[in-house]
């Protein structure tokens, strides 16, 4: 794994209850559930390649396997990845909801029982700005009503902090750090930046441990 995160069949494996890492994602899910009042989590990383998307899918799959209702929303409009890693189309998704006004749940589908996946939908160059709108926050809040946990697959922290609505409007941020690839100095800087911005940093996921 040269970039540390999973794609295609690798991410699909995370949906399988027999995945060798399922136990670890269940531990992560339990730790998150133990935090009171957390219904929506923004998942980000200091740098690309830390494995944000695979952590989102693995976590959501573990929650679904535990009988919870989870959703993963790809809000990385700069680099949509969720649909590609799951081998799904991206004809409709988050941007469709923001444009069309229908609830977000109508633009996703359950890849396994209890796990709703919402891709970005079509992304035009000017679309990235849409992520900053109140409409996006409302759309996610609407999704929270039917889900125990909404997981937002977000861009890297630097981009995330350029959209103040995104990290601040949800219950907390989960930072994914790759054990062999994320420089410590960069990760430290990122946590400092997040905390300076007033983000509720719920915790860290150490991905790719040996």
């Amino acid at each position, binding site marked *: *794994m*040269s*970039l*540390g*995160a*999973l*794609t*295609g*069949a*690798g*991410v699909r*494996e995370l949906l399988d209850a027999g995945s*060798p*890492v399922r136990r*670890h*994602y269940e*531990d*992560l899910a339990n*730790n*998150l559930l133990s935090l009171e009042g957390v219904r929506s989590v923004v998942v980000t990383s200091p740098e*690309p*390649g830390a*494995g944000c*998307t*695979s*952590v989102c899918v*693995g*976590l959501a799959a573990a929650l679904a396997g535990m009988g919870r209702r989870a959703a993963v929303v790809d809000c990385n409009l700069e680099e949509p*990845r969720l649909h590609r*890693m799951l081998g799904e189309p991206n004809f409709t998704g988050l941007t469709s909801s923001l444009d069309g006004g229908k609830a977000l749940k109508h633009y996703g589908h359950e890849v396994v029982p209890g796990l709703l996946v919402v891709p970005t939908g079509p992304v035009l160059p000017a679309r990235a700005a849409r992520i900053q709108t109140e409409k996006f926050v409302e759309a996610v809040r609407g999704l929270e009503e039917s889900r125990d946990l909404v997981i937002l697959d977000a861009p890297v922290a630097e981009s995330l902090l350029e959209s103040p609505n995104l990290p601040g409007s949800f219950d907390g941020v*989960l*930072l994914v*750090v790759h*054990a*062999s*690839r*994320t*420089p*410590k*100095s960069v*990760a*430290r800087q990122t*946590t*400092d930046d997040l*905390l*300076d911005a*007033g983000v*509720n*940093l*719920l*915790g*860290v*996921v*150490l*991905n*790719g*441990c*040996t």
Partner: protein
Amino acid sequence: MQGGRRGNPSLPEILYVQWERRLMVTGVVLVLAGAALLLGLFREPVFTAEAAVGVTPEERLGDEEAREAFMREVQAAVAMQKVMPEVVRRAGWERGPVEFAERLDPRFVAWNGEPGLRVQFSGPTPEQAARGANAYAEVFAERADKLGEGLLTGGALVADASVEGRATPAEGSGPRPMIYAALAAGVGLLLGGAAALLLEGRASGWRGVRDAELNLRAPVLGTIPDYSSAEVEG
């Protein structure tokens, strides 16, 4: 969790880094301490002995400045450079007057309110150090004593000059390899510790939960192992 921008590393962070890089730190300490120990053991030992000469003026001198001026006149009149071969001979020194002079350290001092000379000499043995200091002090006292027969350039007279304190072989200090080694170990600990912190700051590998929590000051909610059946995400 909430918190501010971090300043300097906390003590637990520093201790953790030192412990994780203990081999490197220990190596630096051992190398420096070993080098200092070897240097101390194989370097020629140096022992320092001290003798004292009292020089009494004919008239009592008023203040420190007057005593210093008097001793400068005495020193000029005594002209020890001319009799250095005699001093070297008396000391039984075999390495020549130049090295003898390099190991010699005469200084003006006051003995019970009277001017005097303190002579320090560093030799390879305690006995040699004492002989060197005593020889210089004796010759100086003899020559200064003879000055009483005439006026100095400043007009003062020397009433008496004598060796007030003779150096003994027990005096002086020799090399202390263990002290040097201990000091070098302390320096090594500082250098090794600083290097460990520097390397830690530039490292990209995370050792585990404790490492991440100390570095990021945030709880680690999950660890996901690397598993190889996967492909690559861009």
